[in-house]
Every structure is written in C-alpha cells, then in structure tokens.
C-alpha cells in the first residue's frame, strides 16, 4: 500500500481564498479543472469542428469529382476556381484534416481534457504537480493551434504532403506548392506541439507517481488513471523522436543538409543533396507514429473501462489483466513501427520481424475486448449516452482492429498498402473508436466539468445517427480499397478503370454528411447544456471513484478540508452484502467486510 499522501499540498488550503482575477481564473489559469475545460473547448470543439468540416469538403469532391460547389467557392476561394476544387488544395485538406484530428483533437484534446480533469480528482490530489507547467503546456498548445490555422491562409496553401509529411515531397518547395511556407508553419507548429505535449505528459506522470492520496495504491487506481499514466509515458518516449525528425527536416529544407535527401532532380534542375535517405525519415516518423495510435486510443479505452463498469453496475472484469494489457500494448507499440514500411524498400527480413511483433499486439487488444464484453455479462446496464458510446467503441474497436490482422501481415500489405482499405481500417480502429471514447467521456464527466447535465435524449440521437453513419462511411471503404484504389487520389475518374467505384463514393459521402450533421446535435447539446442544462447532483451516475466526492462547484484545491483517504479499489459495484450497488473508494471497509480480491 502506498504511503504517499497529500503532504506536498497539505498547506494548499490556505491558498484557495486568494483573490482571483478574470485573467488568472479563466485565461492564464493554473487550475487543472479550468485547463481541462480550455483543452476541451479549443482542442475538441474548435479544432474538431475544423477537422471534420474539412473532411466533408473533400468527401464532396470525391463523390462528385470536379463539380462546382458553392461551399468550395466560399471556403476555398482562389483554390477552387469557379467552385471546382483544385487538386493541390485537395491534398492540403487531406493533410490538415489528418494532422488536426490525430494530433490536435485526439492527442491534445482527448488527453488534455481528461488527464487534466481526472488525474488529480481520481487520485485525490489538490492539483497537478506543477500548475505552472500545466498552464504553459496549454498555452503552447494554443500557440501551436494558431500557427497551424495560420498556415491555412498562406498564399501557396497549407502543407499538402499527407499528415506523414514524407520527404522529399515535404522538403522541396519545387515539388508542390504546399511545401513552401505552409510546410514551414506546419513544422514549427508541430515542434511547439511536441513541447506542449511533453510538458503535459511529464506533469501527468509525476502527479500519478507522487500525489496519490493515502490508501490509493497503484492497484487501486481506476483504469482511467492507468491509461492516462501509461499514455503519458509512451508520449514522453516517442514524441521527442518526432521533434528530432521535424528539426532534421527543417535543416534539410532551410540549411542545405542532406539527412533525408539524395540524388534529386526537380523542375529541370539537379539538386545538391547527396547521401541522405527518405527511409530514415519514415523510421523516425513511425517511431512516433505508431505509438501515437495508442496515445490516441489508450485514454479512450481507459474512459470506456470506467464508464462500462459504472453503467453495468459491475466491477470491470479482469482488472489486473486490463492493466497488464495496457502495459503490454504500450511496450509493443514501440516495436511495431516498421509495419508501416513493409514496402518502403527496407530489408524484407525486417518485414518478417515487424509482422511478428505487430500480430503480437493483437493479443492484449483481444483480451481487452473480451474483458469489456464479460463486464456487460449479467450486468444491470444503464444506457446513459456515455455508456452507449462506450459500447460503440468496443464495437468499432473490434471491427476496425480485426482488419489489422490483414494490414499487419507484410505479405497482405503488399497489395492493399496505401489503398482505401488502410483508410477504412485506421479510421474505425483509432479515429471512430477514440472519438467515441471522447464523446463517452464528455457525456459522463460533463456534470463534473460544468456542474450541469447534458440532455440525454439528444445524446441518444447523437449516438445512434453517428453509429449508423460511421459504419456507412467506413464499411464500403474496405471494398474500394480491395478494388485497388490508392488513397489520396483527388478523383477516381481520371482514367476509366475505377469508374465503377463512383457510386460507392456517393454512398460514403452521403453517410459522411449525415455523420457531420449528427455532430451538430452534439455541439448544440454541449453549448445549451453548459448554460441551461439541469443542475447536476454530486454523484449522478452513482459511481465509486473519488472525483464524485468533490463538491459540484469547482473550488481551488478540489476538496474543502482534508483530502479523503482511499480504502478500496474503484470497482466495488453490486458487491454482495452492501446496501447500495456502489461503494465509494473513500468508504472504509465494513466490520466483517473483506477487501475485494482483484
């Protein structure tokens, strides 16, 4: 049992009656709850809106290629002469959509919101280990977001080399218009983003290790905290590698080095670069890029674990197996990056190695899925919107994850690499699944964030429309991929071979528009509930974890008086012999009660 207590912050109580100005309370706040809200609004709502809107624009182009649309005229201006989208801006939209969704929404938005909100509240800490670093982390993220958005307005357009920005395409302004100023801003933005992410992650790690309240041993932590904790560790290990790749690329672009470039002839000119290799960049990028998938996914799975247990009124099944699979996934995630590079020209022997490690990672993933399903078994399921999205996550995680068996196999990758099959796979397994985790978290912890309840009926509508539309968008996409259509094609009608896929593209776009419309329901629900929602009670979902023992009104330091101590694990739901079907972690064991073996 941990003897770590609240000592470092025990005199914090004296602080919370300090006068706070508007600026220190709402803008340059060091309070983790306010920073969580800032991440939610900037990272999830604002950037998410832009990222999704971009995808709808290029979906229109894919369904009705080279047709004139008034929306293109409005939003793309000169990049859509007479309302017809230009191929370069198509690639730019794809690139920025990917960048925003992966990094800004699902990394910063998801971890930033829920790690910040829940780590101190669920482990019983007054705040993060360093409120100042936390604030700096958010404002670096803000700066990074603004630079990324500013890149949309440079004359030649934003970065357009795909979110993976492989050089030489991203390195040479002669190779495409987006590789000029747009790419410079992309790289600066991402470098700042990495700094922000590292400050945040270090803070999360230190807080979880040092600031747990008395009695909160590692194996009493809710799975949310395990997920956030391990996510932060993966982030600290892998993000610096992206930073180094970005810096080397900046050197190649601006200072004439040849890290990633060699033997290049572009626009009638032989360039001076000698001896570098683009494959080196691929290694560096995917050393972050693959762990990134789990940086996105693990917090969503952590959130799901908590919500499924609470709403099933049952302990999460196999708590230790869940922790072990989080750790296994984290470890394996750093040794599988080569499965993105089977046909990059790297040694085929490495292909075998990476196939092996990649399919290994399917085992802990399968264990997690089975454990979720068993948690539902003989439960008393409360279908709150958060629960719907959590079950939805398990469903899309299975559907999307299974096709990983095909993509992770170097042999099969040969013919579907860089086709729409890949797009379908990763959107389901990391895009949709992580977004479902995000939505589940927002619905579940909205009362904690804003002291009000979200409208459940709108939540139901939001979930069911999204669930149907998500399958409608991504299921058919597997087939156009297996038909051989490469991704990032501006249109599939430039030559006749793929003409018969046009109908399927229309179906996909219609479902995408439907999905987009469903998110407006969420946005409306969010904003209206923030101001007019029903006032929340202290523990609306009758949950066990510590955040529900803190008062509804946010106070600096989280708990008035002393921080409660923890006496049990987080999942004593429907424990025999208890009056209620939940027991707060802070409730001492009864006289004859034994601690649950888990």
């Amino acid at each position, binding site marked *: 049992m941990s003897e770590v207590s609240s000592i470092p912050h025990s005199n914090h109580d004296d602080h919370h009656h300090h006068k706070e100005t508007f600026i220190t309370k709402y803008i340059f706040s060091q309070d983790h709850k306010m920073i969580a809200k800032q991440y939610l609004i900037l990272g999830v709502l604002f950037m998410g809106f832009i990222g999704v809107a971009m995808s709808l624009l290029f979906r229109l182009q894919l369904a009705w290629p080279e047709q004139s649309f*008034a929306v293109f*005229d409005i939003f793309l201006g000169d990049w859509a002469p007479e309302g017809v989208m230009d*191929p370069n801006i198509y*690639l730019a939209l794809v690139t920025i959509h990917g960048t925003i969704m992966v990094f800004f929404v699902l990394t910063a938005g998801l971890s930033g919101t829920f790690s910040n909100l829940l780590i101190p509240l669920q482990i019983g800490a007054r705040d993060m280990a360093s409120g100042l670093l936390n604030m700096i982390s958010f404002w670096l993220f803000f700066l990074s977001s603004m630079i990324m958005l500013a890149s949309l307005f440079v004359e030649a357009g934003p970065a357009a080399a*795909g979110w993976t920005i*492989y050089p*030489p395409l991203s390195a040479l302004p002669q*190779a*495409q218009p987006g590789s000029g100023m747009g790419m410079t801003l992309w790289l600066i933005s991402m470098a700042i983003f990495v700094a922000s992410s590292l400050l945040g992650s270090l803070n999360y790690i230190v807080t979880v290790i040092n600031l747990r309240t008395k009695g909160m041993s590692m194996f009493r932590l809710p799975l949310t905290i395990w997920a956030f904790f391990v996510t932060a560790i993966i982030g600290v290990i892998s993000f610096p590698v992206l930073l180094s790749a970005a810096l080397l690329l900046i050197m190649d672009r601006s200072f004439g080095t040849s890290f990633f470039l*060699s*033997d290049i*002839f572009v626009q009638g000119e*032989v360039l001076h670069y000698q001896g570098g*290799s*683009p494959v080196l960049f691929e290694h560096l990028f995917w050393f972050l890029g693959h762990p990134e998938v789990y940086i996105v996914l693990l917090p969503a799975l952590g959130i799901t674990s908590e919500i499924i247990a609470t709403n*099933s*009124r*049952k*302990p999460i099944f196999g708590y*230790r197996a869940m922790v072990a699979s989080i750790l296994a996934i984290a470890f394996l995630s750093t040794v599988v990056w080569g499965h993105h590079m089977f046909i990059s*020209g790297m040694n085929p022997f490495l292909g*075998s190695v990476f196939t092996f490690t990649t399919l*290994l990672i399917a085992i802990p993933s*399968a264990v997690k899925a*089975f454990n979720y399903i068993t948690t*539902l*078994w003989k*439960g008393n*399921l*409360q*279908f*709150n919107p958060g*629960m719907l999205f959590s*079950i939805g996550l398990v469903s899309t995680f299975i*559907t999307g994850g*299974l096709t990983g*068996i*095909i993509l992770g*196999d*170097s*042999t*099969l990758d*040969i*013919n579907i690499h*860089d086709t729409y099959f890949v797009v379908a796979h990763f959107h389901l397994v990391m895009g949709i699944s992580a977004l479902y985790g995000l939505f589940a978290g927002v619905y579940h912890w909205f009362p904690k964030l804003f002291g009000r309840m979200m*409208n459940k*009926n709108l939540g139901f509508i939001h979930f*069911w429309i999204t669930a149907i539309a998500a*399958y409608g968008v991504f*299921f058919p996409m*597997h087939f*156009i991929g297996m038909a*051989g259509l*490469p*991704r990032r094609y501006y249109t599939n009608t430039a030559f006749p071979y793929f003409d018969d896929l046009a109908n399927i593209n229309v179906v996909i776009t219609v479902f995408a528009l439907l999905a987009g*419309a469903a998110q407006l329901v969420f946005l409306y629900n969010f904003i209206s509930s923030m101001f007019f929602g*029903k006032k929340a009670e202290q523990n609306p979902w009758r949950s066990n974890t510590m955040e529900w023992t803190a008062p509804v009104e946010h106070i600096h330091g989280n708990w008035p008086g002393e921080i409660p101590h923890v006496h049990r694990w987080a999942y004593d739901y*429907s424990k025999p012999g208890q009056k209620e079907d939940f027991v707060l972690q802070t409730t001492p064991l009864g006289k004859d009660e034994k601690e649950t*073996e*888990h």
Partner: protein
Amino acid sequence: MTVLLIITILILTGIALWQITKIFELSQLGQKKDDSQIATEKDNDLNGKLMFAFLVFIYAVTIYSFWTYSKVLLPESASAHGPAYDTLLWISFAVILFAQTLTQAVLHVFAYQYRGINNRKAYFFTHDNKLEFVWTIIPAIIFFLLIIYGMITWGKIMNFEEDEDALVVELYAQQWNWKARYGGEDNVLGDANVRFLNDFDGKNPIGIDSSDPNGMDDFVVTQEFHLPVNRKVIFKLRSQDVLHSAYMPHFRAQMNCVPGMITEFSFTPTKTTDEMRMNSDVVDKVNRINKIRFENSKLLTAKGEESLEPYQFDYLLLCAKICGTSHYNMQMKIVVESEKDYEKWVAKQQIFSEVIQ
C-alpha cells in the same frame, strides 16, 4: 446569398432539434416526470433493443456490402505468386469474419439482454483466471499460425533469386509519369543517375550514364511497357524527385520508389492481357464501366462535345504514394503478351546509342 441560406438552414436545424427533444419529452408524459437526464428503465429498454437492432444492422451492412461490392474487387491474380497471396487473404478474411460475427453478437446480445431494470442487482464477478487464460491463448495460437503462414509466403515473394533468364526492367518514377527501361540485348541495365538527366539535350530522360557500355543497348519506353508471359521479371525501381510507389494491383505487386536508392520487386506474369480480357469478372467490370461511359457520353454529345471511346481492359501500373498535384493520374499501361509478340515489340524500340546519336 449562400451565406444567408446556410445561416437559415442552421437556425432551422436548431429549431428542428428543439422540437425533436420536445417530442421525446412529450412521449414520456403520463409517467412520473423525470428530468434528471439519467437513463431511466424506459431508456434502458429502448436503447437495449436498439443495441440488438444494431447487431442486425451490422450483419445487414456486411452481407449487403459483400453481396453488392464484391463485384468491384480485383479479378483473379495474373502473377505466379498471386494465388498464394489470394489464399492467405481469404483465409485471413475467414478468420476475421468469424471473429467479427461472434464477438459483435456477444457484445450486442449482452447489451440487449442485460439492459437495466430497477432494483435488479448485477452479478459481482471480478475475474476468472481460467477463462482469461483461455481467451488469451486461443487468439495467440490463431495469430501464431497466421504469422507463420504469412512469413513463409512473404519469404517466397521477397527473396527472389537473380537468375540469368529473368527479365530485368527498370521502372522510373517522376512527377507525374512512369517510364520503363529495358537492358536490351545483354539484359543488363547500364548505370544511371539524375546527374545525367540534362545530358544530350533532354534525350536522356532517365539519366543513363553514357560512359557505361552496359547502358548503350538499353531502351526506354513511355505510356506503356510490355512483358512476356510466364517469364520472371525483376523490377528495379527508381525515382528522380519524391517518393512514389509502383503499384500493380492485378499482379499483387507493390514497392516504393525512393530517390537515391534502387528498390526491387519481382513477379512472373501468368496471364496475357488478352486472356485477362476474357476473364468473366473483367468482362463484367468493363461492361459496367462502358455503361457509365455511355451515359456520360450522352451528356457530352448533348453539349456538342465528343463522346467517350469504349473502355477496354488493360493492366495498370499506378502510383500509390502521395506525390503532388497529379498523383491521382500517374499511371502507365502494362501489356502482357506471348514471347513472340514481345520480341516483335522489342525489335521496334530505339536503343540508347541510337537515341543520342
């Protein structure tokens, strides 16, 4: 005007949503008024049933997709290693579909069956080592078998021998077209580098080193390249500017083209273009495409433009790695033909020493 329209639509959508919530609330009239925004027994019942309906939906989407979309999939493979690839693919698919059908069923049926009822207590069940062991070990065994099978196939495809009678072809990528180079009489490609691209006033489009005697009988083709059927081809891949990917889906073949590097891939074509045109899947596909082209032609002729020519199947070399503006149209025709026709085609090509004279 459009902006106004969009704003109006947004406002109307807002009102519509507000009305829908009202309807939901009205439908709950008559019961005890509950505005807690926490799921009630009725909500649990409705959503639990919808969970079951969603399982049916997933199955329906799966069946519908396989039923209607499987016709767009690639036809049978046209290379020697293709059948092994396809077998592995369909075995993997069988495993996936089995797992998908089963786990989705269990997930959604549990969600339906155990939808919440007031005053029922859930079963307290924290862990079961035996059960967990079983479902760790079963996927582990299945994945292990798939890995072994995959690795063997991978080894066979990738570790090709550089035997003498294999035809060596260089595929040369640039923004945004392909060129192919053949070794000529000696079947050996001469050295090449981007430094030589500007030699001979642009008559050296892929940068053959004129000081290397091996290169003198090489020839370069654009638009289309030919391969003799049933003879092993070793592809050497180069790119002059950015990353490209040589993707030949009908042969189950793909490899990236990396500036500064020569990458390799090999396959043996087993079906000539003419044979493939007779394949029933291909015939169906061509008919479907021509129907679309016929419809489009009607629109074009109505506008006074030329109508589209009927489409005929050809093997394609596509670019599958994002490479800039015309990435979507970077393709080259591949013709597979009998050895005799191939020789005839080769005889017509102009070799490098003739080109630079």
